[in-house]
């Protein structure tokens, strides 16, 4: 059934016209799994931090294990939410210009939230508070 225009290599790679294949789907599931693990730990952390004074909170957040855990979580969340909302935009925003504006703002938002969080975690972890 293969078209003579499609080379065997292209068919085997199966990456389609966007050259990404199932990467979007795969990333969504992969970060979904990592979110599940990392956010479960975060919820336990939040319960452990409830009602504690500021110095305690900073000391716990700055612990290397906690800080790295939080860094991974923030990056995982940022990637997951960016590609998730990307699909929502592609589904509902049909005007070409507006769609691309939304996609750009979506990327900016995810990176901004990620950058602020990473900065805060690193500042605490490096003892700058």
């Amino acid at each position: 059934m293969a078209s003579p225009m499609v080379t065997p290599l292209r068919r085997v790679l199966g990456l389609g016209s966007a050259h990404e294949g199932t990467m979007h789907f795969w990333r969504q599931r992969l970060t979904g799994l990592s979110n599940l693990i990392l956010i479960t730990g975060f919820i336990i952390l939040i319960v452990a931090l409830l009602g504690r004074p500021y110095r305690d909170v900073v000391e716990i957040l700055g612990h290397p294990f906690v800080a790295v855990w939080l860094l991974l979580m923030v990056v995982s969340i940022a990637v997951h939410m960016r590609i998730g909302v990307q699909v929502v935009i592609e589904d509902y925003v049909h005007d070409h210009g507006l769609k691309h504006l939304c996609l750009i703002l979506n990327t900016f938002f995810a990176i901004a939230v990620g950058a602020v969080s990473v900065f805060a975690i690193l500042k605490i972890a490096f003892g700058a508070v």
Partner: protein
Amino acid sequence: MSSADLKANRPLSPHLQIYHWAPTMFVSIAHRATGIALYVGTILLAWWLLAAATGPAHFRLVSGLAGSWIGLVVLFGYTWALMFHALGGIRYFIWDTGRGMGKPARDQIAIASIVGSVVLTVLLWVIGLLVW
């Protein structure tokens, strides 16, 4: 018949209100809605982390807001959105394997994720309020 008439008389594909409402339809759209709510709510996460990184005064301000009446309501809703979206993710992992797609199974999984999200949210808040 002009082309405009042809367009107007074209049969339309059935839209949402034609279908009998099913649990799977609810969890599908609610997964999106909670995803968007969680997306917006990451501002709160970033703000809380930044407050902790800024100093005790700013941290007290954010803690105070989080512990206020309106803050607790928002956080309770956010907890439910997170639990529902997380269970929804597990639901998709199950469906990814091809299991649970039959007529009774898919509705049971959908209802289980709704009930489970409420149970988990209440459980977490009971634990949280006891610790607080």
